[in-house]
């Protein structure tokens, strides 16, 4: 092997080369390649350690899931709901929001179908709604003289104003203004009478 590349060093550090190839690469790599291999191995150990720690942390949460999977495998005809109910510890630890979201995930199709149906029904009801019918009924209410009810209101009576003669000009005669009083609350009537000078008879 004349020249050693980084992928070769990575395969060596990962143990993916057989013994002959590994020894050939180690010889060709020299001191610089050996340092790279050592660094790669250290980084690999760090990554593996981190992933193992993360797996340990998730083990409690994944345990219930694995149990669920195992039960599903043991009882393939059981429904998902039954399996969920069979793992109360996992459900309780998830909280109300997670339970709600799980329920929504399971019934998403039902919810969408219900919403669309409700919208269609509302649209039909709006389009096909009947015109409001107004029925006017006349009901005769007997008038009683008892004091139980409120006193009837007096009808509005407009106030009359006596007639006014603001100006009067008479040519060739005498003008007289009379007022005839109205009867039964009626209005007065103004009379303007002219007696010409050349008329001897008058009122």
């Amino acid at each position, binding site marked *: 092997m004349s020249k050693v590349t980084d992928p070769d060093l990575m395969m060596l550090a990962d143990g993916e080369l057989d013994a002959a190839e590994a020894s050939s690469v180690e010889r060709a790599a020299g001191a610089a390649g050996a340092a790279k291999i050592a660094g790669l191995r250290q980084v690999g150990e760090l990554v593996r350690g981190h992933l193992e720690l993360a797996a340990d942390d998730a083990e409690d949460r994944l345990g219930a899931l694995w149990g669920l999977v195992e039960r599903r495998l043991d009882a393939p005809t059981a429904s998902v709901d039954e399996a969920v109910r069979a793992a109360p510890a996992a459900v309780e630890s998830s909280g109300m929001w997670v339970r709600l979201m799980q329920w929504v995930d399971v019934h998403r199709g039902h919810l969408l179908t219900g919403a669309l149906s409700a919208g269609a029904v509302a649209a039909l009801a709006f389009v096909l709604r009947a015109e409001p019918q107004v029925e006017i009924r006349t009901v005769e209410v007997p008038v009683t003289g008892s004091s139980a009810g409120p006193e009837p209101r007096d009808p*509005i*009576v*407009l*106030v*009359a*104003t006596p*007639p*006014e*003669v*603001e*100006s*009067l*000009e*008479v*040519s*060739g*005669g005498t*003008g007289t203004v*009379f007022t*005839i009083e109205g*009867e039964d609350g009626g*209005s*007065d*009537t*103004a*009379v*303007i*009478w*002219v*007696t*010409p000078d050349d*008329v001897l*008879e*008058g*009122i």
Partner: protein
Amino acid sequence: MKRSRLTSVRRSAGALIAGAVLLGFFDPTDARADAPVACTVLEIEASTSDAPAVDPALRPLEKKLKKPPFSSWNTFKRLGAHTVTLELMKGSTLTLVHGKAGLILREVTARGPKKARVALGITLDDSDGKRVLDSKVAVDAGDFLVVGRSLRGGTGQLVALSCKP
């Protein structure tokens, strides 16, 4: 576009609300100051006869005609009847059997619980066209006003008029 339509709708709604408020505050029976008025003018001849009679067409005035100063006559005959619509400050001339009558609507006022008031200018000319009377009066809408003059032969000419918006 949408904004202008919304503005138009808001303006229309505002106008409707303003109209409703105005209708609520003002009595719809109130007369408008510039509204035309319809006047009924009756020309009556008064005389004395052995057969007292009041023309049935003068029934609205019958009681008044039996009171002084008209009680000096006992026969009243309607010579003519006119219905004229007067507009504010526009004169109208009526041809009578005995001359002419001129009317002009000066003002119409409505003051709360009081009857609408009609202010008129009235002129009366004799058969020769001579101005006999020129007067300005104000009466309640619907009430009669009587203008008259003595004629030769002991008769009288009465012009009774009533105006209402």
